[in-house]
């Protein structure tokens, strides 16, 4: 328990170190999540349109 406490305390700089890693994770992870969701949505749209066009012909 003490070990984890020392680790989390980051030698007294916990606020700075964890904020830095947190911001990096939030920004890059957020961009990745946003890009992935938009990609899935675009794939679904293309498949739906292709099916609709196929049915009409």
């Amino acid at each position, binding site marked *: 328990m003490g070990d984890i406490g020392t*680790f989390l305390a*980051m*030698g*007294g*700089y916990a606020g*700075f*170190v964890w*904020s*830095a*890693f947190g*911001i*990096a994770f939030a*920004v*890059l992870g957020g*961009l*990745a999540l946003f*890009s*992935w969701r*938009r*990609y899935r949505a*675009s*794939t679904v*749209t*293309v498949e739906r*349109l*292709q099916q*609709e*066009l196929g049915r*009409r012909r």
Partner: protein
Amino acid sequence: MINWLANPARFMRLSAKAVPWCGWTTAVVLAVGLFWSLVLAPPDYQQGDTVRIMYVHVPAAWMALSIYLFVAAASAVALVWRHPLAEVAARAAAPIGAAFTFVCLATGSLWGRPMWGAWWVWDARLTSVLVLFFLYLGYIALASAFDDPARGGRAGAVLALVGVVNLPIIKFSVDWWNTLHQPASVMRIGGPRIALSMLAPLLMMAVGFSLLFVVLLLLRMRTSLNERRAMALRLNADAAPAWRAGRERVISAQISVP
């Protein structure tokens, strides 16, 4: 090679295979890199544990510069050779570069406060990186500011090329001016001046960030090609009945003439 890859259909086929592989490799490399930099790497004898901020700050800065170079090179190819994928690539890469630049600025600020005693100083390195961030935002805004995407792409490409002048300013700002920011300690003539126990996790994170860029770039390019395909399909769906109706009218008119 470039001409061979210029075919969007071939790009879609190849990238569909590459994305899952790159994605999982990125996750593994970043997990190892994070464990290495947060747990295994030693604290600095002067900076203590704040030195760990380096493991995101420095690779993010490298990415910010190299992605800008990528956007500018892709823009040049799009302007000169009208390569169909080059503009798609430049547009897809710019927001990723902006995100890395933001991470670089924010983590630098969080490192500067305990070590320099200031969140921000207007020295040459910090200011030129802030300009880089605004160049990214300017490119993104300009490239999507026109109703005609082709015109937006050309305007953005010109801005991206003009902005390249900022890259050597960023790189050499720490040598040309007296800055609070320290000079290069890894990419310098005479080799890195940093202990291996810190250099190894740093390079691991750099590899992880580069892989993340590749995955996000491929994903965003695929999205953009999908969206273009959807637009073409919609136009096709709307136009087909009208075109058929028009043709029938013409044919019936021709029949009724004599």
